[in-house]
């Protein structure tokens, strides 16, 4: 559970799991997932996971961003209108 501070106004609207969410400029898609309280599940056991390192090392923030699966959400800056979904289980291969 995470919260914004007034020092950094939330000016960018993204959609996390279809729900609108405002995040500050500079926030990554992973920050949006944390603010929304949305986690992913693993490909193997389906265990719940959420972002751990936020610096591109652990791959725990995997998400589907604007329709592209298995993105490292912590390395993708949130942009207006971005659609973010947590990666649930293994990515399903298919046409982009």
């Amino acid at each position, binding site marked *: 559970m*995470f919260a914004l501070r007034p020092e*950094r106004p939330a000016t960018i609207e993204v959609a996390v799991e279809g729900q609108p969410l405002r995040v500050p400029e500079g926030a*990554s898609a992973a920050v949006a997932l944390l603010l929304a309280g949305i986690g992913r599940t693993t490909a193997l056991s389906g265990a*719940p996971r959420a972002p*751990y390192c936020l*610096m591109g090392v652990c791959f725990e923030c995997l998400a589907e961003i604007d329709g592209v699966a298995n993105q490292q959400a912590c*390395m993708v*800056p949130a942009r207006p209108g971005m659609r973010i979904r947590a990666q649930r289980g293994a990515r399903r291969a298919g046409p982009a």
Partner: protein
Amino acid sequence: MSYDLAIIGAGPAGMAAAIEAVAHGLRVVVLDEGGGPGGQIFRAVEQAAGDPALGADYAVGRALVGAFRAAGVEYRPLATLWHLDPDAGLLSVLAEGRTSTLAARRVLLATGAQERPVPIPGWTLPGVLTAGAGQILLKTAGVVPQGPTVLAGQGPLLRLVAAQLARAGAPPALILETTPPGRRRAALRHLPGAWAGRGLVGQGLGLLLETRGLPRRQGVRELRAEGEGRLQRVVWDGGSIAAATLLLHEGVIPATHISRALGLDHAWDAAQQCWRPVTDAFGASSHAQVALAGDATGIGGWEAAMAAGHLAGLDAAYRLGRLDSAGLAYRAGPWLAARRRALVLRPLLDALYAPPAAVLAPADAVIACRCEEVTAGQVRQAARLGATGPNQLKAYLRCGMGPCQGRLCAPTVAALIAEVRGVPVELVGAYRPRAPYKPLTVAQLAGL
């Protein structure tokens, strides 16, 4: 596109190297996975330097970033190096969803550090993050944990994050320090050498004073995270506390993913309990066209990294014929001295905050490889069955073959195999990662 020098990473080392190399007439490109210059230490400093929660020691980064912006370097943010052929001088880069190829006569890896994994029971639960992640939330978005927060582990970053969270109006409910009793006395033998680093000591003491009023336990053992589906409690030998967020930290280690993939020589650093690429004083590696600078070569902090960046930039200018040997020696002197000064406290810090044995080689039930969900017990069993090192272990358990490609489990897996074999950890070897260094899609590859 063709360059004299390609620099990977825009932290203090990469920025300083670029400034130096451009000043000597080299054509330089800087590839940065981040969205703006600064690296991890000065991440988002252009946006967040004014945030009083982050403090003056963060805001100083603005000067270096400003000099970098003004230097005339070709800077490419959000660009991921996924393959490097150092013999041909070719770099494959993923940016904006497309791959491209650059050519460079020389490559400098300034890829910095990563936090050491802290494998404790329950560390995969949502709500458990690294202390560095907590700081990244603050720097990049002004975001703070909500609900009771516990900071656990040890090292300078732990108290810094505690102080920053408190300033941001979200003080930790508890700090659990894992430094064993008696460690302070052992570290004191390094104190005489620390006089030259009294400025840094002053910074550290300032943080200790600022955070002394926060609830704190020392000598904490058997730390674990508990909860159904997410973190609910933090438990240790002698107590427990309800928690929504647990921020873990047991120091940082060099990010060796690319240097390992290139097959560069590495040496075991017993004091810092990590591998570091072998370099000379100027950062030159075992490959004639590849150099390294900054924390990627061993943890020294941003001032040492900045000095190392200048040295690597000078060396590139020398090797590419823009500086003679006398000029190199003259210009390198002050940076060699600056790096020595920046490193005087390191032996004390390494001794004081050496990771506990249980963090290096955790108990059987603990997840060692988060990607493939492999426990420490499974790794030990595979070692008993004949997995002699991390690369053999891949065939047994797939450790190191998940999305993170072994970035996070490498230290743990090596320590566990060494324990079972009864040999020093440096003798069991290390993962040999392969390109692509970060995953890319077939469509991205086909677009090359």
